[in-house]
């Protein structure tokens, strides 16, 4: 199959993720949408790697997975501590600093 189709899929996934970040209100779901965006990037890297016939893109995909894992560790720690303090993970409730 033409690898360009995978790029269309990657862009679609990235757009869905970005839309989810902007629309959803639960911090965990927002975070999952960010992860979806990172996975879309991975798909694009691997597809381009195949098109160009070099391995750079595949190696970057591994780095991205590690970074995404590290981000989950940090992100869940922060979101869980917020949830335990307020019993809510809604990003709308977090408005202490609104003018």
């Amino acid at each position, binding site marked *: *199959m*033409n*690898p360009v189709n995978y*790029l269309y899929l*990657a862009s679609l996934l*990235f757009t869905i*993720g*970005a839309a989810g*970040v902007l629309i959803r209100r639960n*911090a965990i779901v*927002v*975070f999952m949408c*960010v992860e979806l*965006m*990172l996975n*879309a*990037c991975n798909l*694009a*890297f691997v*597809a*381009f790697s*195949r*098109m*160009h*016939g*070099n*391995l*750079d*893109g595949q*190696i*970057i995909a591994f*780095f*991205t997975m590690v*970074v995404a894992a*590290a*981000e989950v560790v*940090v*992100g869940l*720690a*922060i*979101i869980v*501590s*917020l949830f*335990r*303090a*307020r019993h809510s993970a809604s*990003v709308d409730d*977090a*408005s*202490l*600093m609104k003018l």
Partner: protein
Amino acid sequence: MSAASVHSLWTMGADSTAKIPTPHIEYAQLSPVLIVLGAACLGVLVEAFVPRKGRYYAQVFLAVVALVASFAAIVALAAGGYGSTKAHIAAMGAVAVDGPALFLQGTILLASLVSIFTFAERRLDPEAHGNRVDSFAAQAASVPGSESEQSAVKAGFTTTEVFPLALFAVGGMLVFPAANDLLTLFIALEVFSLPLYLLCAVARRKRLMSQEAAVKYFLLGAFSSAFLLFGIALLYGYAGSVSYAKIAAVVEGSVSTIDPALADTMGNDALLLIGAAMILAGLLFKVGAVPFHMWTPDVYQGAPTPVTGFMAAATKVAAFGALLRLLYVVLPGLRWDWRPVMWAVAIVTMLGGAIVAITQTDIKRLLAYSSIAHAGFILAGVIATTPDGVSAVLFYLGGYSFVTIGAFAVVTLVRDAGGEATHLSKWAGLGRRSPLVAAVFAIFLLAFAGIPLTSGFAGKFAVFKAAAEGGAGPLVVVGVLSSAVAAFFYIRVIVLMFFSEPKADGPTVAVPSPLTMTTIGVGVAVTLVLGVAPQYFLDLANQASVFVR
């Protein structure tokens, strides 16, 4: 392209793996980064093995020694000519060792060193159960106001993890302006961002606000780095490589061998333009430029003040370094496309930051909006696309970072029963109550406003001069106008401090330990020296303004 030709390319790529040489790593030239990251790893071990009582001292000692040693390594490299004649690209093309990189790394290290002093300050809060406390939560994991928090405070716990976290962040920031391929850029970005998200969440007072700031920073930061990563993917698709030099060659059309796949993607300008725009968006987020600035006021307000100072200074230096290298090394061939966009961003950033700052009533938010306006002024220098522009930006960043850290250090001193008194109305009459602190803060505000004899004036002058010579005259006019608007609210704070009656229930000014005094003293000294005798440092920035390719 047919599937068969793709497949033959693919197997050729797989065959050549046998010939990959062992990577050649120049450890001596990477030593500044290695020292800091090594000390950060040691710091984690200290957390695990040193008894609780000795951890604070061990961590502060380790952090200070690491930063000083790393700075010494930078000076040794610069003295060895790596900033000018011997500038080259180390670590198999991943990290550049050149003038701008060394200058910015030195700035980041000095700024981090004085920030670490404010992290270590333990005399501002009253003692809790006979234990001296710093600005960080007794136990970040315990729920605010819970029994577990009270018992942690009673037992005298402190979050000494902030020191290794800060060192990891510094390590990432050192790599960020020196990154010479897009993968290193992304990894460095994450290495310095992730510890900062955590540092934002561990304030001792106003913990709900601190956690909220961390969530906002984290979600928006992760969102922006996803954009950066997709931009990297598109540029990789365009050029078939993530190396800065190769992408620049493909963008300029001066690439020597073109295989069929590259010929196919090179013709697709959409990949290049969208990719570059997304990477720029990711970097402008870190810089805090309008329209990517939404996180700045909330995060600056909610984070523990020492962390705010560190983040405001060091992150900005690192991010502008990366932005400069990207625009000057990778995308000079695309100059006619990115300059109009950056013009627009610089104009809205300068005006937006200055105008919104007028309405602020909280000193930390005020400084946050002022940092947005300053990002706009620095962008004006970035747009100049001349060597003078680079040196002006380097000089501006050097002066600005010490002013920022000093100003936030002063904010930690003004306190009432609830911790820091950040509401502006409480600062009324501070000049009568504590003339010295008010005078020092006034110096920092004047430097922000760009009044002559301060570093702010020298920096702004250099940046605007470079922008005017680079053909961005209208930008300079907007810059001067928004400087005037900004001067209004800086002066307003000074008038509030010196010419209004102190309130009866006003805040007290805590007497800090020599640590914070050093931070503030260095801030004042740098501000005045760069303002009165900037020539030596301008020359230094000038010598350091050539990027290696």
